[in-house]
């Protein structure tokens, strides 16, 4: 009988992962937000009654997944269990209790079986607008960045809070899409809840306790085994990033002990006056993601596997305090993996990839007709990626998102959303750092306003002053640049203008190389030449 029990619990674990995958798919198919539907900027998960994450959907991006793991605890702390009812849905976009900026809406739904609260479903998605200055780094405080929704009820016993919707409708630029996304988020949790009840009924279980304990104890054992295999000690690393108007230093020390893996951001620059600050919850999400990808990529994300990581920091740009502006927290947040992996590489020599472009090169474009012409206004969001760092046994991936898990969008679709023309989007030769294994190439993008139009764009770029560094003798990747086609230099952060008739030219950074360049195989060098990945002088 014990045997049968073991197998049934294994099967249900499998099913629980399928339940959250259905939850995520529902969100993906119904969301309005470009970043969700085209780029997969979302996450979904299931929790036990104490708010411990048991499973998360494979579909999703690390910044959301690991932050959401903690978010549910905040909901439990603020909404007493006696005022939770079947049919409720809770919401927030609090950057410090959700996923790091106001654009991300987190919804949590209590799951009741009969009268018993057995767990929670949570999901997060990036919505198109939250009012304020719009998505960009120019805010001086979170108050300028949009509407703040405290942890509250979106729906009580199935009744949606109409007051909240009315306030939202008046505060955001695209109310139909934003409110549509609120409904999509709530609906996806409902799908998860319904599937969970079906599963429990089929298995003859009253709640998630036994299954949850099984999942967490198995995961705990597996992750502790991995931890035991690591060397003990403390290692540190630091790096520079562009910042808004002056370089920002990031620093970390990681310490591996029997108790777990400690990460501390002491020594990192103070908070910025601009919206590039990172709430600790988000920095922690990416630190955990990077470390886990190296030491335990095959162990699922849940409360037990995340528990071995202890992240701390004094107040600074990676642990920004309210009311710091945090709108584009992803730019520096995406640098955190390179930062912590640089420290881990000292503990595990030869096992950790080189630095890469890291931050996505998102462009938010606000296009309008020129003063004397007819035309249309539109907001266009593009996701673009530079090169990934070379791996210990492989070249870096070119123009591929890392650490973010998002997709790019087809330019044919992008050009339908607004009056712009993308004239170029292709690999940037000679941008990968040389090495035994070459860094991934960046890309070159040229965007012009359509005839009779001009646009403003929000720059959210990095690795322009500080390129991705190589590892173990590998050279650094090419830094990025932002200019107009006539050569006028532009800033890496903040809203700027592109007049009619000009093109915005983005050169995305390449990844760093791994190992000495003279150890690169001849075949690989020849192939780089034939394909034009390198230019003569650089090979």
């Amino acid at each position, binding site marked *: *009988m014990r*045997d049968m029990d*073991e*197998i*049934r619990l*294994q*099967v249900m674990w*499998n099913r629980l992962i399928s339940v959250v*995958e*259905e939850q995520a*798919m*529902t969100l*993906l*198919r*119904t*969301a*309005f937000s470009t970043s969700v539907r*085209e780029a997969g900027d979302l996450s979904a998960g299931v929790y036990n009654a104490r708010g411990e994450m048991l499973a998360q959907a494979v579909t999703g*991006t690390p910044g959301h997944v690991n932050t959401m793991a903690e978010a549910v605890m905040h909901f439990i702390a603020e909404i007493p269990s006696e005022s939770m009812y079947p049919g409720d849905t809770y919401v927030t976009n609090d950057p410090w209790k959700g996923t790091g900026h106001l654009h991300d809406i987190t919804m949590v739904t209590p799951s009741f079986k009969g009268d018993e609260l057995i767990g929670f479903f949570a999901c997060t998605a990036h919505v*198109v607008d939250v009012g304020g200055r719009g998505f960009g780094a120019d805010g001086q405080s979170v108050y300028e960045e949009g509407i703040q929704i405290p942890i509250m009820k979106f729906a009580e016993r199935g009744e949606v809070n109409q007051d909240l919707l009315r306030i939202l409708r008046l505060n955001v630029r*695209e109310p*139909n*899409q934003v409110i549509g996304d609120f*409904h999509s988020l709530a*609906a996806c949790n409902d*799908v998860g809840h319904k*599937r969970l009840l079906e599963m429990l009924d*089929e298995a003859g279980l009253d709640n998630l306790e036994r299954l949850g304990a099984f999942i967490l104890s*198995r*995961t705990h054992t597996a992750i502790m*085994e991995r931890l035991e295999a690591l060397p003990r000690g403390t290692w540190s690393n630091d790096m520079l990033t562009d910042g808004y108007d002056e370089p920002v230093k990031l620093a970390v020390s990681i310490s591996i002990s029997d108790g777990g893996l400690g990460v501390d951001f002491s020594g990192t620059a103070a908070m910025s006056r601009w919206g590039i600050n990172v709430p600790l919850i988000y920095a922690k999400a990416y630190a955990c993601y990077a470390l*886990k*990808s*190296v030491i335990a*990529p*095959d162990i699922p994300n849940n409360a037990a596997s995340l528990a071995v990581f202890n992240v701390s920091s004094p107040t600074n740009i990676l642990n920004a305090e309210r009311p710091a502006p945090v709108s584009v927290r992803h730019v520096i947040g995406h640098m955190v993996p390179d930062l912590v992996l640089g420290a881990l590489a000292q503990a595990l020599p030869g096992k950790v990839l080189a630095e890469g472009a890291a931050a996505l090169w998102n462009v938010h474009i606000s296009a309008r007709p020129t003063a004397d012409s007819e035309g249309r206004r539109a907001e266009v969001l593009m996701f*673009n*990626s530079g090169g990934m760092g070379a*791996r210990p046994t*492989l070249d870096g*991936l*070119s*123009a*591929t*998102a890392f650490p973010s*898990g998002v*997709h*790019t969008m*087809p*330019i*044919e*679709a992008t050009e*339908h959303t607004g009056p712009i023309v993308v*004239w170029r*989007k*292709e*690999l940037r030769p000679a941008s990968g750092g040389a090495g035994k294994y070459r860094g991934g190439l960046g*890309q070159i993008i040229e965007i012009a306003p*359509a005839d009779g139009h001009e646009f403003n764009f929000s720059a959210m770029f990095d690795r322009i002053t500080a390129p991705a560094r190589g590892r173990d003798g590998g050279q650094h990747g090419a830094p990025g640049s932002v200019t107009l086609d006539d050569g006028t230099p532009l800033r890496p952060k903040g809203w700027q203008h592109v007049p009619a008739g000009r093109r915005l030219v983005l050169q995305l950074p390449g990844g760093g190389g791994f190992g000495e360049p003279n150890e690169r195989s001849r075949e690989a060098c020849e192939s780089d030449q034939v394909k034009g*990945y390198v230019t003569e002088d650089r090979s």
Partner: protein
Amino acid sequence: MVSHKIRLGADIGGTFTDIALEVHGTIYSTKLLTNYTAPEQSILDGVEIVTRDAGISPADIDIIIHGTTLATNALIQRHGAKTALVTTEGFRDVIEMRTENRFEQYDLDLVLPPPLISREDRFPIAGRIGAQGQELSPLDEAALEELADTLVERDYGAVAIGFIHSYLNPAHEERAREILSRKVSVPISISAEVSPQMREFERFNTVCANAYVRPQMANYLSRLQARLKEMGAGCPVFMIHSGGGLISVETASECPVRLVESGPAGGAIFAADIANRFNIDQALSYDMGGTTAKICLIDDFQPQTARTFEVARTYRFCKGSGMPISIPVIEMIEIGAGGGSIASVDVMGRIQVGPESAGSEPGPACYQHGGEQPTITDADLILGKLDPHNFADGKILLSIDNARQAVSRDVGSKLDLDSDAAAFGICEMVDENMANAARVHTVENGKTIDEYVMIAFGGAAPLHAARLCEKLGIARCLIPQGAGVGSAIGFLKTPFGYEALASRIMSLSSFNASAVNALLGDLRGTAERFVRAGTDDRILFEVTAYMRYAGQGWEIPVPLPNREFTESDKATIETLFRERYVQFFGRAIEGPEIEFVTWSVKAQDERPEPDKVALDHEGTPIEAETSRDVFDPVAGAYRPTGIVPRDTLQPGARVIGPAIIVERETSTIVTSPFDAVVQSDGAILLVRKGAAA
């Protein structure tokens, strides 16, 4: 009229070539090993066997319907022509940059599939069409003239042309082909013809794939026709395409990418035909073989179709790890779960099954052909689902000892389970994986799975179907006769059909009836032309618009009436869209604009209605003469289970579960919650005890 014809279906699969011949309603079939160096030889050999069995000569065959995995294999194994891609300046790397995404986020050593056409073979040319179909900059014709020389010099075997927004305005692609073809003698494929859909990565990749397999497929098809003629079979040959219709060999030679996935499409049509005969309006076809399982939804006797799919997945069947092909296709999900799928235990002590497969060589451990890893077949054997002395018609003697040894070593000992429990765990896990995939697939399509009737075929499906039904809450499952060569039989039932698609983004509020009528007229003309190549019968048209709320990225198919539209149809279309939306996602949304993205017209010839037969849910219980101990998943223990040979069963017999119905190629497991009722045509209906008809 059609049913009087003598029809031959030939399905070339990865391992076997299946031939099915229908002579006045009787089916003769055979299975041969696929001959890789000369695939047509397997067909010729098969034709000889079945015509001899039927007592006819090859000259008596009226029509040959052929499906083949050769195009798919050429893409998977990368042995197509040396191909050049001519593309818009600034977009040389579209097929290499893909979606800029890692399909597996935690694998830092991820390798992306290399582009089908390498960077040095991709040639950018200036000239640009805009998002409204207008010319933004002229095509650089002088550069094309020069390029033509380069293409000849470098000895390319095929050329693909893919320009931005060509699905809206093909002028530049057509002109480029014209210029190049003055000097280049190899076939040139253009994306506006092969796949006129928005989204450049998918469209470019599709035209590249088409060009890449074209010389090889054209060559094969002409060889096949010639050899068939030599043996006296001079009848027309038609090809089944991925969308589940027939096209002429000439069309197939020009657009061979349409042949990708044609074999599995035949399986779905086989199931659809059975659904039609038994009047099952919601059927789930479940085809499980040696390496994978495939599931397809069939509503109103029509297999579900999609506009795009992915072939040649390189990473555990992971979404995103293959090549996107945007052509109309019968939509199937494929899971790495077949009889040969290998079981193991991961670091959390979880049993994992597949997608690695032991294949037929060395095969499962129990085959005694040198396979050492435990597979689904080994687990099935241990649990008593297979008779070791009567497997594959007695051709392979199975060793229970080998199976137990492998299962114990790789699974049981790691989890402290005996080999019975470990075997049960393996089967439960694979059944669960299939059930999860089926469930997610139905959710994605806004359907409810427990309302479906399963139709199970392929060697391994009848062993797992009943348990799968239990997990999915499905009450009825039909296991047809001839399930082993299902695809080839499906070919015989395939209509002459073609689906023409075009992307045209338009908001519903600015619905322009005359523009839509013109576009649909073109699509109707295209689709009809392909169908007319094969039939003079009446043609039925289906019109579908792929629509969404403006701002969404996922379109849903909305069936529209096949007629001329007027401005007043706006309201009708809005209602149809909202109904579909509710069906998919539960509730419609107020406020956002609704828009059209892609239009489709499907044409197919009208098929005679088959004689409908009601499903028999009752039957008369019979006693099994022998029994053996078989593991019962519900009880979690072995129970005496009746063993009944399928060929002794008469229509109307009811076999009470638990029981096993054995036959030459496979066994049907009737788990304890089910009984089995034999239908008038010999099909087995698994019906949940106490389920209402």
